[in-house]
């Protein structure tokens, strides 16, 4: 095992008691990427499951890839359709890749740099969570956002939403959504309107495009068919548009057991029921927008599958996951319908429920404690 020996030689100065011991987490991160380490069990169970955090996070990335690749293609597709240039599938993919890959590079570069620095500073290993966050952030941004904004949002999200709370596993808010929320409120002109959703729309006059929800909020008609909305050939944040490919990702997450199906099903039920009730009411364009269409436009599908299921910021108990999921769906529709300033409700709905998730769990766990207390009281005072 030659490569192995070479790595061991490189790692020598980072070993225990050696000169660069402090920086060991940074080197280990690369080493464990190449090799699953030779660590054996010392206490507790002598055998361990094949799953670890790296495997789990990479599975999430696999689940994200269909939506990501479609998002890259759709970026090119929207551009060429708008500008009226003839194009092939590969032209569209290439155009999208040239736009999006730099965003991915910036997101990973900035985010991982901060993660590594904190791992060294805190003396723990680098957690793999950012592998997913780093890909998610570009996927939920408008395509024309400047790269420096991506970098700044990433820095804000990792520093404020994650590391300030103690790092991976401790954060209250989903870091990727925090990045988007930061950009949304700090640079609203780059995050909404009809000049950001299609590639080059901000530079070329002839190109514009509104999201479906944006046009509805502005009181315009929607020109897309339900099929377009489901397939995703519509303007929107990079990877949110295609419900079909999001569903493929959802299938991977549910089948592998990595994503919580309870949150996903709860979310869809909550949103469908709420949207259906609004259909009956029908006081404005968004209210009377068909409830089935509500589920497939905008970021709802993407958010409920990939963001609401983040296990750290979601509810952690089984019952809590149902409540959390249903409420995410409900609030998403409420925000969409009642607040035309934020036609896309899913980001704020998930962030809001992130804040309430610990409270939901608290009451679920408290119920368990009460049951136990009740049992004790019954035994203490037997019926005579």
């Amino acid at each position, binding site marked *: 095992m030659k490569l192995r020996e070479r790595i061991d030689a490189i790692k020598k100065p980072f070993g225990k008691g050696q000169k660069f011991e402090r920086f060991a987490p940074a080197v280990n991160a690369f080493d464990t990427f190449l090799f699953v380490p030779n660590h054996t069990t010392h206490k507790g169970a*002598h055998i361990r499951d094949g799953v670890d955090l790296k495997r789990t996070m990479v599975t999430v990335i696999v689940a994200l890839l269909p939506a990501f690749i479609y998002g890259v293609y759709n970026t090119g597709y929207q551009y060429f359709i708008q500008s009226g240039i003839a194009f092939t599938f590969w032209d569209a993919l290439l155009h999208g890749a040239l736009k999006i890959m730099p965003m991915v590079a910036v997101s990973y570069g900035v985010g991982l740099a901060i993660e590594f620095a904190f791992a060294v500073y805190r003396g723990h290993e680098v957690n793999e969570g950012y592998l997913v966050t780093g890909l998610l952030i570009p996927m939920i941004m408008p395509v024309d956002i400047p790269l420096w904004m991506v970098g700044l949002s990433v820095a804000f999200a990792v520093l404020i939403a994650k590391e300030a709370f103690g790092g991976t596993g401790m954060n209250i808010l989903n870091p990727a959504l925090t990045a988007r929320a930061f950009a949304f409120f700090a640079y609203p002109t780059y995050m909404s309107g009809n000049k950001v959703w299609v590639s080059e729309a901000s530079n070329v006059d002839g190109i514009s495009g509104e999201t479906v929800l944006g046009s509805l909020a502005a009181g315009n008609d929607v020109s897309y068919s339900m099929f377009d909305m489901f397939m995703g050939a519509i303007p929107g944040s990079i990877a949110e548009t295609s419900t079909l490919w999001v569903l493929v990702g959802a299938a991977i997450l549910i089948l592998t057991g990595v994503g919580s199906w309870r949150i996903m099903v709860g979310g869809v039920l909550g949103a469908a029921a709420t949207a259906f009730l609004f259909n009956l009411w029908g006081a404005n364009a968004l209210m009377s927008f068909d409830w089935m269409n509500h589920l497939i436009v905008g970021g709802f599908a993407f958010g409920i599958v990939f963001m609401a299921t983040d296990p750290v910021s979601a509810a952690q108990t089984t019952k809590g996951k149902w409540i959390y999921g249903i409420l995410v769906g409900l609030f998403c529709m409420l925000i969409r319908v009642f607040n035309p300033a934020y036609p896309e409700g899913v980001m704020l709905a998930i962030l809001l429920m992130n804040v309430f998730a610990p409270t939901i769990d608290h009451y679920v766990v408290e119920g368990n404690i009460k049951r136990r207390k009740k049992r004790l009281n019954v035994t203490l005072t037997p019926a005579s």
Partner: protein
Amino acid sequence: MSADISLRKGLSIPLKGEATKDLKTSKTSDNFTLYPDDFHGVVPKMHVKEGEKVSLGQPVFFSKANPEMQFVSPVSGTLSKIVRGAKRRILEIQLKSDGKDKAVKHKIPALDKLSDVDVKSHLLASGCWPFIKQRPYDVIANPDSTPKGVFISGFNSAPLAADVAFLLEQQQEDFQNGINVLATLAPKVHLSISADDTSFLSGVSGVEIHRVKGIHPAGNVGVQVHHIDPINAGETAWVVNPEDVASIGRLFTTGVFDPQRTLAVAGPVVTKPSYYKTRIGAAIAPLLDDAGVSASGQVRIINGDALSGATTHADGSVGFYNNTLTVLAEGNHFRMFGWLPFAGSKIFSMSRTSLSWLLPKRKYALDTNMNGEERALVVTGEMEQVLPMDIFPMQLLKECMAQNIEKMEGLGIYEVAPEDFALVDYASTSKIEAQAIIRDALDLMIKEVG
């Protein structure tokens, strides 16, 4: 058969190397060892000095906290050595057998004339008391307490663990006698058997029989207690291993402490895994010689099952509570890109990130590799999947780490033993040491609550 208790959660780990049901007697070496660490929380005080003679059943040491509680020799011969560790803590008591088995004979009392106090003192003096353990805390039962019941699990569900009906095949009468003895100590004796059990166990009298359906940890007595009659603060339940019940039974028919042990020698690297008739404290080397170990590299020898047993070594001895000896290959090797999901079916995982789930019948030669490094707690729901109890495992573990006693009580610390969390160790994506956390928490409870 219908089940009284049906458990859906848990995990059955398809480990290779199950012992064939064929009871062998191997050569025994004349070296025997007692490990005071088998008795958690007991501080041993020696009766016998190095070089002194002992008889079978003669007290070798007693518990400092409870001088009535005797721990006796499994052979007659001499005490050859006391191995001490840091702060002169006794790690091993080595005995050399003279092959004569000269035994201490106790009077055979008539059971129907005995009060529970007499039975207790007889068990304590004869060295059989340590067979009785208690919940809460998973330690040797406190003889001064009154249990709400004695619970016996009539089946093992841990990977490769010995088959209880097979262990007891030739000790059916002793088992029944043991039950009769235990019945004098508690208002009720509960025996849980597997839902599809057809052995003599379903016909044992003087017990309340519960049929339990489910995969591991359904065979853990703590899980069964939780569903039969959960322990509240201030209550105790006593638990006894099935073969130890038979040993207690023999004490009351022969008057002699019987150290007999039926041991399943099993594991993926054992050539001929089978059952052996041996005794407590016997050297395991002759057993391993006979069963054969096929691994080329290092091996891990475990007194107990692969999930919650204690590591021993080739010169080690059979533990006090064991019916299983597991041998695994050490996993101290690197796996290039071993974290890639869907890359192969060779890695067993309860998540479907490995294609192993497509081959439900395959058995695996698992080794001791951690399959990753410790990480922050991220994934939720996996602990709940393997703990069939009305307990929130992650919340309980977090309160244990925070040493918040009130919350630990509220979340059910009295109802759990480390072995119930063995699968949590196993399943944890973040490689959490749940059994160690629970053990520390129980020790804290003993200190603070008592």
